């Protein structure tokens, strides 16, 4: 099965006023499979926001090829079409809310793509369910009367209502508290299940997606350095050189693994506890 989204040697440079060109992305090769959750991680300035926007068809690569569902995407019309299939959620998405009612705001996207009537309503309902937002309670309220967390859900629903095949999120966890993070992760899982869609999460902190992502793509200075699972990440790769750090889970898992323990899932506290327990028992000769 072809990957849903493929980047081949994609580069992107943008002109800085008075300083000529500056390369944000350099020869990126990336494949996102259907139903995958990929985390694109890198320190600030590594180009991850640029990569996200290129994937979403909002920026045109300076060189290289972009393939969606096996087909090349090149012309302006094709790129615009790509925007329908790939939903992009920017940082602080609640800054884009504008409509008189929550329902109208969520409907904005699908409406722009020509949906009306019953079909439109169905989409809005579906999106609201995924983000766990009750339309009975909130549908007719003004988006501006909601709490920050609720606003963010409305904004996310607005993009989900487009039913994109790939969802790209740029630093979605910033400013969220525990409840907010859990909500978001649950919504992403739900969305993936429903339509076998793929999710690309851009973040600077691996801790955010440690338990969510299937694979991690590490960016540094515009280049893709590694693409691995969390399990592979803890078995010895030095993230310090990329100006990144393993989350606490990963640090613990790595120490245990390098000490010889077996850790099948470096995101599961029970697994880590078991590994530690065996060390303790071994020590006491039990």
């Amino acid at each position: 099965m072809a990957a849903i989204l493929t980047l081949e040697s994609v580069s992107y440079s943008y002109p800085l006023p008075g300083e000529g060109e500056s390369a944000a992305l350099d020869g990126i090769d990336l494949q996102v499979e259907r139903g995958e959750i990929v985390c694109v991680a890198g320190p600030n300035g590594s180009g991850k926001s640029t990569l996200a926007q290129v994937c979403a068809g909002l920026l045109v690569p300076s060189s290289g090829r972009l393939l969606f569902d096996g087909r090349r995407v090149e012309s302006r019309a094709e790129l615009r079409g790509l925007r329908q299939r790939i939903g992009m959620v920017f940082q602080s998405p609640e800054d884009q809310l504008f409509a008189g009612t929550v329902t109208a705001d969520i409907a904005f996207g699908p409406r722009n793509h020509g949906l009306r009537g019953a079909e439109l309503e169905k989409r809005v309902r579906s999106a609201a369910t995924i983000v766990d937002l009750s339309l009975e309670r909130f549908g007719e309220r003004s988006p501006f009367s909601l709490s920050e967390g609720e606003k963010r859900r409305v904004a996310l629903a607005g993009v989900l209502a487009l039913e994109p095949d790939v969802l790209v999120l740029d630093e979605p966890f910033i400013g969220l508290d525990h409840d907010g993070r859990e909500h978001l992760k649950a919504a992403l899982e739900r969305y993936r299940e429903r339509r076998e869609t793929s999710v690309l999460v851009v973040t600077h902190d691996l801790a955010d997606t440690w338990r969510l992502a299937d694979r991690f793509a590490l960016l540094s200075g515009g280049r893709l350095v590694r693409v691995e699972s969390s399990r592979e990440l803890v078995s010895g790769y030095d993230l310090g050189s990329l100006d990144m750090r393993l989350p606490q889970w990963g640090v613990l898992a790595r120490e245990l693994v390098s000490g010889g323990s077996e850790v099948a899932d470096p995101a599961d506290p029970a697994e880590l506890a078991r590994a530690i327990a065996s060390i303790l028992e071994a020590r006491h000769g039990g």
Partner: protein
Amino acid sequence: MTAALGKRVGGETRAEDRATVPAGPDAGVDEIVVEGLSYAYPGACEDALSGVDIRFERGRYYSLLGRNGSGKSTLARCLNALLVPTRGTVTSCGLDTCEPLDIPDIRQRLAMVFQDPDTQIVGITVEDEVAFGPENLGLAPDVIRERVDSAMELAGIAHLAKRQPLRLSQGQKQLVAIAGALAMEPAFLISDESTSMLDHASRRRIVDLLTTLAGRGVGVIHVTHFLEEASTADEVVVLEAGRVAAVGAPAQVLADPSRVMELGLDPLPVTQVGKELAALGHRLPGGILTVEELLAWLRS
């Protein structure tokens, strides 16, 4: 790391450390006393804060935690009279926040930095930005110069003096904001989620600076939802629905992951592992909150 551990176990500040930061015009009382504080935002049907009683002392590092909407920012803003109590009192450094004439003095003694690095900047160069506060106090240019230089030195940004703050990284902007607060020579520094929008390295740097400041006699009140940052505090205060739900040393308050989750916070990974370990029959000693501590214990 060990210094922070030391702080948690026996965290008294030495008298000499307190003296390194001048206390401002006249040394008022070295604490903030909050009694029966309630606050409701205009037009809201519920209280954002309900009957909060708490005390903050100079020279200690407090971490103020709570889920979004728990009232932590509201409490922070009641301390320096940005918000005035609906009921109850807040006495900051001996001054009543309800007294309008005392507000300028309160704001000089309680400096604040905010969450969004971009919306608190007013200056065109870093120097100008840091000088903004002292300029508002009408101090003489040479006094301002001195304060600006020592504040920038303390915050580690002296080399950025002539740069434009808006062109710096988010983390650097927050350091500039803190320098701006330090230039007021405050008794207390309140950080209203100043690390929420930053990457890990910048957050670390800010927390280190805040810890240093507490060591030098400034009372630090750091509002955050990152438990990692709270683990090195002298005292942790958790708010829930406008009330104080928990107060105490980090080792006490943050140890139980289920309780922490009930309060809407992300439990520390080590405490979750600790809970699983307990289920397998092994108890972690109290006070282990970070992976480094866990590994150190494991090796011993």
